[in-house]
């Protein structure tokens, strides 16, 4: 009986060590997946917010009188930020904060004909993330 108990104790130590090794290995893999998942979730949220900011900006542009949109090729950089000409670019240029996310807008406008303007807005967020939306506007 005493011999049996002694053998069982040794085996349990090995079992626990193996178990720890397995758990440690699993946790390393799982933790990396967890971190990646968190990053993806963060990115997803940022893309979603940036897309909405870009969409809202283009809607603001559409709400403007067409002739308030400059006729030449212009670059409005929200990082500098380049000052607006009249009412263009409209809010939320040059920056807006949604929750804790700061978005900077870089707006390009160029003529595509006498009565057609091409508008491109790049919404920048974080250190290097951005989305770009483009549309053409007719009066």
């Amino acid at each position, binding site marked *: 009986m005493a011999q*049996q*108990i002694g053998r*069982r104790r040794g*085996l*349990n130590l090995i*079992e*626990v060590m*193996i*178990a720890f090794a*397995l*758990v440690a290995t*699993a*946790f390393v*893999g*799982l933790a990396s*997946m*967890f971190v*990646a*998942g*968190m990053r*993806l*979730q963060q*990115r*997803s*949220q940022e*893309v*979603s917010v940036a*897309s909405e900011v*870009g*969409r809202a900006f*283009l809607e603001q542009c*559409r709400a403007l*009188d*067409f*002739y*308030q*949109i*400059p*006729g*030449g090729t212009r670059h409005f950089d929200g990082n500098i930020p380049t000052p607006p*000409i*009249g009412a263009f670019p409209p809010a939320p240029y040059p920056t807006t904060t949604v929750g804790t996310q700061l978005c900077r807008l870089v707006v390009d406008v*160029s003529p*595509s*004909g*006498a*009565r*057609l303007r*091409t508008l*491109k807005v790049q919404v920048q967020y974080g250190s290097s993330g951005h*989305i*770009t*939306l*483009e*549309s*053409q*506007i*007719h*009066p």
Partner: protein
Amino acid sequence: MGQERRGVALASVLLMAIILMMMVMALYKSVGGQLFLSKNRHDEIVALNCAETGVARTLTVMELSPAWSTDMDDQTMPTTRGTWTVDFWDGTGTPGPDESVNNISGLTPAPSHLGPIPPNSALIISTGKLGGATRRVEVLVRAGPSSVEYPVLGDGDLRFHGRFKVDGIESLNTNNPLNVEIHSTKTGPGNIISWDPIHPGDKAYVQGKVTSSGSSGDRILFDGNNHPGSFANYDVMAFEQKFGKAAPYIDIQTAVDAQMGSPGSPLPTAGKVVLNGGVHYYHGDQQIAGDLVLQNGAKIFVDGNFKVNGSITGKGAVMVTGNTDLLGDATLDGSNSEYVSLLSKGNVTLRGFDGTAALDAIASLEAADPNTPLGAEASEQWDAIQHAMKEVQTVMAMDGDQWVGDATPQQARFDQARGLLGNDDHWTLPGYGNHVVSDFRAKLPPGPTGDFLRQRLDSLNIYRRVGQDGNFNDIGWTPADITNILHAYNNGTYNDSMGGVVDAVQTKDFGSLSVDDKKVLDSVIQLTDQLDYDRLGTAFFKGMIYSNGSIYASNEVNIVGTVMTSAVPGPTTTIDGIDLNPGDIYLNNNTRITFVKDMFTNGTPNLAGAGVVGIISWLSK
């Protein structure tokens, strides 16, 4: 039993590890799903922008080619991802749910998957795609020039020479003043908007702002630049640099070509031409020796140059693919509903009749010979007419309770001046006879100068006494006659035989005027304001003048409406020694433009289908 418990810890840990792994996997999958949704949302926004780009591009091509029906498949965006597609129904069978229907040039409704599309309209269905995201936009659009907002609007240089006045009113029936704006969309070098006086005392008056899209304020020169320091004299609310609306581009050639199937009867070479409704197409240069009267929205389309040695009046439209020249001495009335839309692909020249100068010249020449009909007496009578007009304008500018009604403080002063203008037997200015205007009229010589001045003097008939007919005979009057006159004036059925409308409304008690009576009052005040006391010989044009070239007004032109250019590149033209580029507007010597907002509130209905394509409604998005 001890053997059976071996491995329990390992199994438990493994089980926990599996559960943890499943949880993390689930989390990862969930995050991946979120990312997919977020990406898809982004793609959908891009796809919607693509679809809206498709609508914008289609509107543009429809403006340039109203009959456009070529499919535009998988068109790419200029610099970003995504495509858009607009397919058109080819006219056979029934339009499919994804097929756009262009009925811009149509005169009858056209079918679509939503039901009939009205004439001069189109259903645009644009589909935008990016990756797996697809967005579809349906838009109902209608063609026609957009509402006009400026009395003077050009794509080129705007040059004013000599005295000029630009003002605005809400309506000819209300006379409420309106601030207006002169604007040039030109952004190039040089003086974009300029005013140069001719004589000392010349004044530029703008009841509003003068604005330019030029990049600096010094592109507007209103200081008599050619005569530095001499006689800058202007009254302008402000000078500004701003982005303003350009005049709509109207494809006149296409609009005219579309009417080839409706040839008009040959135009008479002499006398007045009256066109009663309908479409009248002419190929080649056309010339009318007398007046052109457009009734009931008649439209005349000329594929060539068009010259009218008289007035264009009534309600209708004129479209010309070449140059347009007209004398423009139309008679002004107080109606909002009657005006002419003149659209010319080439240059428009308005040669206003310099009646004042002509009359002064005649009077001064013949004053030397007392045996001629026009002599010193005529010159005095002319001065009296001008003085009376000034008096009438001065009194009418006062509040109505000062002069409307028989017991008002200014009643006698007003009636004296009105009586002189209206050949009233009862009233005239002290020191003058009772028939100054008719005596003066009788002295005018035959010929175009006399005809022109007689026509101008006839516009003074509204100042007759209420109890005088068109020949100034006394016909008596009752209160019911006054009611009839005012009612007829509001209904557009007023005529000379009824008696003087100005006296009719002035005779009433100001406090008892009805809403309709006040419309008449405001209308005659406005009319009086337009009949400038010292420019009685001027020429009138009522409506819209539009050109893809330049607009040149030579002399004493009075426009009630608007002038605008939408430049199409072309050569420089020289008119009366003035170099004009497409888009330029040159208004010379005593030009007056009065913008009437009501005329253009709903665009220019005479030209539906011939101009800008505008969105009526977004059906789905």
